[in-house]
C-alpha cells in the first residue's frame, strides 16, 4: 500500500471513529455571587449565573435525564440548606437561549428527551441558598448529579 493510501486510510479512521452514545458538557457554572447571611439568594434559570449543560448525542438519543440534588451543603458549621423550586429547571432543544422558549421543569423530576442526529439539548438549573445570620463562616460543599440515560 502506498504511503498516500495509508495516510488516507488513517484519516478515514480518524474521521469515522466509533459511534458515540452521547456527550455531556458542563457549559456554565452556577454562581450566586456574594451570599448575604440572613437573606435568600436565588439564581433563576434564565440568569447568566445559572448552571448550564449541553447533551449532544452524535447518533441521536431517546432517553431521560434527571438530577440528584443535594438538600444541604456541608461545611464547618451546621449544614447550609440549598433549595430548588418547581421552576428552577429548564431545557430546550437546539437553542442555547432559555428565555424565549423551551420547557420549564421541576428539577426533582425526570425529563424525557428524543433527539435525532446532531441535535442538542441545553439544560439549565437554578437554586436558592438561605444562610441564617448565625451561619458559621467557611466553605460549604455538596454534589449535584446529572444522569443521562438512553432508553434502549
Amino acid at each position, binding site marked *: 500500500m502506498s504511503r*498516500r493510501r495509508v*495516510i*488516507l486510510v488513517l*484519516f478515514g479512521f480518524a474521521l469515522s*471513529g*466509533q*459511534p*458515540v*452514545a*452521547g*456527550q*455531556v*458538557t*458542563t*457549559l456554565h*457554572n*452556577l*454562581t*450566586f*455571587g*456574594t*451570599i*448575604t*447571611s440572613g437573606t435568600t439568594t436565588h439564581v433563576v434559570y434564565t440568569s447568566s449565573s445559572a*448552571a448550564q*449543560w449541553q447533551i449532544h*448525542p452524535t*447518533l*441521536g*438519543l*431517546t432517553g*431521560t435525564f434527571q438530577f440528584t440534588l*443535594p438538600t444541604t*451543603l456541608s461545611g464547618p458549621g451546621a449544614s*447550609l440548606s*440549598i433549595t430548588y423550586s418547581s421552576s428552577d429547571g429548564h431545557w430546550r432543544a437546539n437553542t442555547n437561549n432559555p428565555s424565549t422558549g423551551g420547557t420549564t421543569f421541576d428539577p426533582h423530576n425526570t425529563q*424525557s428527551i*428524543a433527539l*435525532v*442526529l446532531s441535535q442538542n439539548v441545553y439544560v439549565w438549573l437554578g*437554586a436558592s*441558598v438561605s*444562610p441564617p445570620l448565625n*451561619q458559621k*463562616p*467557611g*466553605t*460549604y*460543599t*455538596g*454534589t*449535584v*448529579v*446529572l*444522569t*443521562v*440515560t*438512553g*432508553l*434502549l
Partner: protein
Amino acid sequence: MPVPRGLFMLRSPIRAALLALLLVPARGFAQSLMVASPIVTIDDRTRTGLVVLINDGIVPMEASISTFYGYPVTDSLGRMYLRTFTDLADTMPSAAAWVQCFPRRLHIEPKSRATVRLLVTPPANLASGEYWARLVVATKGGQISLGGLPDSSGIEAKLDIEVRSVVGLFYRVGAVKTGVALANLRSTEQGDSLVGRVALTRQGNAAFVGSIKAQLRDTIGNVRAERLLPLGVYYTLEPRFSLPVAGLPPGRYALTVEALSNRPDLPSNLLLSTVPVQTSVEVRLE
C-alpha cells in the same frame, strides 16, 4: 530556497484533509465527556467488550464505571422510564453482577481518550438468551462555585458536579431471537393532536430494541401524519405517542402502528433484526 518539511511535503488532497482536521474549532468546555458505544453487545464466545471514554474538555477528569440492572417500562400515562431494582430475584436475567470493568476508576487527561475493557464471567450452564445490564459512567471534573467572594460573614458555598451516562449492555448466549406483538391500539383526539397508545409484548428470548412508526392515513391511503418512536421492549410496554392533526378535515382515517427493528439513534448492525408487524384501527376526527 529550502523545501518546507512535514505537512507541506504532502500532496495537496492529503494536505487539505489534514489541514481541515487542524482547523476544526476547539471547544473550550471545562468538563465534557463522550461515551462511545451507544450500546454494548457481548456474546458468549468472546465474553469481552470495551467502552471508549473521551474527555473533550480542557480539564482532567476522574471517571468510574459500574453496572446495575434495569430496563425501560411505561407508567400509567404511557411515559417511558428506566425501572431499577434494589433487590434482584434469581429469575431476573441480570448480567450486572457478571460484568467486570478494567479499570473501574480512571483518570483521563484533557482532549484524550481511555478504553475500559469489559469481561463477563457468567455462571455455568447458562440458558440461551439475552441477559441485561446497564453501564454507568460517572465523571467528576471541576467544581462550580455557588459563592463568589465571601461576604463579611465569610460564607462560601461550592457545588461539585457529577455527570453519569447510562448505556445498555446486552450479553447474548447461544441463539437469540426477538420480535414483538402489538395489541390494544387506541387513540383519542386531544387539541391539535391524536394521542394513541399501543401494547407491545416481546417475543423470543431477547429484548426488542427498535421503533414503532405510527401513521394516520386518509380514506384513499395518503399518509397525513407520521411519528417514529424509538423504544426497547424487554417484557411489555404500552407507550404513548401523538400525531399532529391540526388542519386535517373531519372524517374517517386509519391509524396504523408498525414495529420496526431499527431506530434512528442506533447503528442497525447492533440490533437484532425482526419481521415488521403492524396493527390498525379506524379513527374519526371531529
